[in-house]
């Protein structure tokens, strides 16, 4: 195992009933990388995320986060290693105020990242136009702000690694661009970022490396150019997108 891997999985398997969600997945993201993950619906992207952060347990295989074997570690302990995750469907606390949404994560913030973390948070809040003292209910925010709020929430914990499940879903083009800008900036400060995305324009905009999942397997991996050129990828995925 290389020391600078932020995430590494070895032979990860997971089945739901008769459906194979992860089939011998070996997946690695280096520290500081900005990785995109694509694949058709049901390819196993969300399941992989769920297993990475500990919401689902793997049937077999191992998961390492920053060099530590976390295969049997509880989800909240993985978060304390510096992992943040947003969900495919927005899960900010809709009935609580923006202010509360942004104060609740504070007590579990990873203190050694405080300096850089504060800077990242300040940048994101500013770029997203979120006021940390806003008393309006999160559920009353427009959709894009709600998405941004959830991203800001995980930044309050000063993470080293963020996993974003379709962060731009439902956003207007200019909002997507703004998101891309923020993600690229955060990554430039050394924040390892993994994004699941359908929007190929967005992927092309931000990604250095792209992983393609298909039927629970890592189907292909490479630069944006390589992947877009890949014959089979076009067939299974891009052709339909």
């Amino acid at each position, binding site marked *: 195992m290389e020391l600078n891997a932020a995430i590494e999985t070895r032979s990860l398997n997971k*089945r739901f*009933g*008769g459906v194979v969600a992860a089939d011998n997945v070996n997946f690695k993201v280096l520290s500081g990388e900005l990785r995109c993950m694509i694949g058709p619906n049901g390819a196993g992207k969300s399941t992989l995320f769920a297993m990475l952060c500990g919401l689902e347990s793997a*049937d077999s295989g191992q998961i390492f986060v920053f060099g530590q074997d976390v295969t049997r570690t509880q989800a909240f302990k993985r978060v304390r290693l510096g992992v943040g995750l947003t969900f495919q469907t927005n899960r900010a606390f809709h009935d609580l105020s923006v202010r509360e949404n942004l104060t609740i994560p504070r007590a579990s913030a990873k203190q050694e990242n405080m300096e850089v973390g504060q800077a990242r948070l300040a940048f994101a809040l500013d770029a997203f136009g979120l006021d940390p003292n806003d008393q309006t209910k999160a559920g009353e925010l427009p959709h894009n702000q709600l998405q941004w709020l959830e991203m800001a929430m995980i930044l309050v914990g000063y993470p080293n690694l963020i996993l974003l499940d379709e962060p731009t879903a439902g956003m207007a083009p200019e909002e997507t661009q703004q998101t891309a800008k923020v993600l690229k900036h955060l990554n430039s400060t050394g924040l390892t970022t993994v994004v699941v995305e359908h929007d190929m324009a967005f992927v092309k905009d931000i990604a250095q490396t792209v992983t393609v999942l298909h039927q629970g397997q890592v189907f292909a991996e490479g630069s944006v150019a390589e992947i877009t050129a890949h014959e089979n990828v076009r067939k299974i995925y891009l052709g339909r997108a």
Partner: protein
Amino acid sequence: MDVMPLVLSLLYQFGTGAAFLFLAALGLVVILGMMNIINLAHGELMMIGAYTATLTYHAGVPFWLSVILSFFVAAAFGAVLELLIVRRFYGRQLGALVVTWGVSLVLGQGTLLFFGPFLPSIGIPGGSFSYGDFSFSAYWLILVLISLLLILGLWWLYNRTPYGLQAKATMQNADMARSLGVRTPLIYTLTFSLGAGLAGLSGALLAPTVTIAPFMGQQFVAPAFITVVVGGSANVIAGAVASSAILAAVKTPIGMAFGAFSGTVALLLAALIIIRIMPNGISASLQKYFNRRAGGAMR
């Protein structure tokens, strides 16, 4: 004492114990297991069944006919309950729990005020037969048989009939089912009404063995919930069958050796431990086990 009669007696006790749990849980299997409604008025639905059977029986209706009648009366009551109250609590499990508790208070005390503290009992039909030192009630054997038939019937209903398939689809994803043209409100009403009817049916079936009183339902509530919860919702019917069998298997020998109280305690402790080990119930664990075996075979 010969061993054979003792073994037979234990088997008989096991069968009746399991049948009791299964019958107590029968309506709840549908309402809690499938619809996810925590129905604390379950006992009162059984009480309605038992009251219907008792009143019609004493009015001269043959026993088995009065049992069937009580299914329909309880089902009709269930439909009304669903339309008026339960309907507004889908997806709000704890709300449903509290509101059904309120319903059960009103039904219990209301029955007391209306019918008084007791109804005359129904004599247990069927005679008894003996083997060795032990004698057995024929009626309980009939109940075991009926339980088996009901299991088969439920399985058939939910796997082989259009209603069953539509109901399964609705419970799993109501929006999707609606978009496929299923009339989901009707399905909800029908399913709740079926659950209520089954509760009434088991209330009527158990009526000869219990005192017919307004609060008679309370004695079934705890066993029913334990059976369904231990069974789990991955496959409710199989789960309820497995859990009533396991719980009866724990209760019978301990109760025989140390008395009824120890048997009850053993049952409750077994339930707690099973839930600690298998938070999603026996059926989920069984399913997982079979999946893993199936997965192993495929590889």
